[in-house]
């Protein structure tokens, strides 16, 4: 068969499932995802605890907010997820470059602890590149719920995987920086650091 027009590049239309998809399915069908494990690693502005299981990363906390104490992180983890977490030495693949570059989009996440609405909010936050910010209203519009600005704010405030899912890149429309789970000062440091990199 001769081709007068080049075949349109249909392979460009390949898509990857949304962030957290595999974890969602594994939980739904009841496949065990293994113990939660935690590593302490260097983040963009100080060390961070990152907890993960076989389905993906499920919990991130700045080490400073738990006084660099693995036992206090474990306490926080159990309070939030009702599960134990065991310290390990080896970070999951891709974690360190994602933290260094501020690009957490390619990592697997276990976001089964939050609602579908919150997952949509977090997936949208992942689209904001390092060095840039968006408003709460922008996120609300992107997920198709332009009136849900406050709900977007609380979903971001309860982000189980901050820093990697960059809720710190979402700010108030009046130019103020807005709240942050680890305090506004940390949010400012994260943004200043990203501005200096780009």
């Amino acid at each position, binding site marked *: 068969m001769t081709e007068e027009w080049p075949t349109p590049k249909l392979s460009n*239309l390949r898509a990857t*499932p949304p962030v957290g*998809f*595999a974890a969602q399915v594994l939980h*739904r069908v009841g496949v065990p995802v293994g113990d939660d494990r935690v590593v302490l690693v260097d983040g963009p502005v100080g060390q961070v605890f990152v907890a993960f299981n076989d389905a993906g990363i499920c919990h991130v906390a700045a080490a400073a907010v738990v006084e660099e104490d693995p036992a206090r992180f474990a306490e926080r983890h159990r309070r939030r997820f009702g599960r134990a977490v065991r310290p390990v030495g080896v970070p999951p*693949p891709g974690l360190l470059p994602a933290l260094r570059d501020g690009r957490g*989009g390619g990592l697997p996440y276990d976001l089964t602890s939050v609602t579908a609405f919150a997952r949509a909010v977090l997936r949208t936050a992942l689209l904001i590149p390092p060095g840039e910010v968006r408003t709460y209203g922008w996120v609300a519009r992107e997920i*198709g719920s332009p009136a849900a600005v406050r709900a977007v704010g609380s979903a971001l405030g309860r982000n189980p995987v901050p820093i990697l899912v960059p809720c710190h890149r979402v700010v108030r429309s009046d130019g103020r920086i807005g709240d942050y789970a680890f305090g506004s000062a940390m949010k400012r440091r994260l943004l200043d650091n990203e501005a200096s990199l780009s």
Partner: protein
Amino acid sequence: MGDARQPAYGDEGAGLVDRLAGDLDAAFAELLAVHGPAVYTTALRVSRQPADAEDVAAETFARAYAALRGYPPERTRALRLRPWLITITLNLWRNQVRAASRRPTVVPLANAGERHDPASGPEQQALDLDGRAQLADLLVDLPEQQRVAVVLRHVLDMSYADISAALGCPEGTVKSHVSRALAALRTRLASAAKEGRHSEEVRT
């Protein structure tokens, strides 16, 4: 999170059926990693509604898990995984379309399905988005049988034998759907390109 394996679309995962037959729970994450992209892409490109595509893809794997739980090992070992999964995906999608036709329509988020490639830079993303969105729009206008056939053949790169198995129709029929779909796409792309040049000329 084991190895960060990113399988090619054509990769069936050597020995995966044996691992599924041996220990379903241990191997199921691999099935998701290997075939998740093809299943999700199929759901997304035939329907073009990102939220529905995720539901259909998740439901596909839930059904697949339930089926594999009930299959004797020899039946699992005999499966051709990709055509089998795609058949489930397409059945679920058709059921959903039928159910949705009895409900008020939801307006989809424009381009929302094109947006998750946060790994590439913003400029590249914008370029990719234009081309992909245009092509995806043209695809949606094709008649259903042509659209499904061309998605499986040229987006997923499935063999005609596998497509024929997935659709339950002869290879000759699949080939004719694919070539009609390509002809239609070429014509529409060519006229879109011409219009594009005209508008450029008008502007300058």
